[in-house]
């Protein structure tokens, strides 16, 4: 802690900037991505449970049927759609498209609207898994 390097000023971070719409979207892309990272690891665990047979799968099924797990899975669906649509926006930027300030706000709004719509539709379709009987 008393090392001279520790006393050096750091470049300003998030807290010095006024929060804007596009900034929140950018942060959400990362957070949703991290949530999906956890899901990708859970997917591997779920596949192993299936491969190990009905008893192991039943244990996984009981864990996934609990209310907190169902809320997590519903959240994963939202994260999937948001990260997908926001990912298209990032790929467009990689191609050099849509950098204008007004355009970034418009494309951001579109991403949120599409993610919300797709989430609601698939949550309805998944209701029998998430809300129904285990």
């Amino acid at each position, binding site marked *: 802690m008393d090392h001279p390097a520790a006393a050096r000023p750091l470049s300003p971070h998030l807290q010095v900037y006024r929060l804007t719409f596009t900034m929140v979207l950018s942060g959400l892309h990362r957070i949703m991505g991290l949530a999906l990272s956890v899901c990708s690891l859970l997917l591997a665990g779920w*596949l*192993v449970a299936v491969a190990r047979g009905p008893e192991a799968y039943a244990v996984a*099924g009981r864990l996934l049927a609990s209310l907190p797990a169902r809320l997590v899975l519903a959240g994963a669906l939202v994260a999937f759609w948001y990260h997908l649509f926001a990912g298209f926006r990032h790929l467009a930027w990689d191609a050099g498209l849509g950098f204008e300030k007004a355009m970034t706000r418009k494309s951001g709004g579109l991403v949120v609207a599409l993610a919300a719509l797709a989430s609601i539709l698939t949550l309805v379709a998944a209701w029998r898994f998430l809300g129904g009987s285990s």
Partner: protein
Amino acid sequence: MSGREPRGNLVPDPHSTRHWRNQRITAIALVPLGLWFLFALLSLPDLGYASVSAWIAKPWQAALLLLFAWCALWHSSLGVQVVIEDYVPRRVQTRTLRLLQALHGAAAIAAAYAVGLLALGGAG
């Protein structure tokens, strides 16, 4: 960093361009694969053992499922790396990165083992 070009010579670091490129390749691959996975899952009659194991036992479904799991894990590992580089203190950065990469690698091997077992007769 070792292996850098002499100062003042701005040559792209091949390691970081590879990271950037692989992140984009896996992102594009995950668009059809992710949508396929979600809709395949939603169109199962139920999530019981019989339905799920019968689904994965079909060779094409198993191949797509493994491809999806691998792309998702690879994309995940690349993304997590960037977050670690941004937020984890330097002192423990490398260790954290190696740990999470090992976790992703183990998950990729486990997924291959599981899908292979189900597709190649485990369910038959």
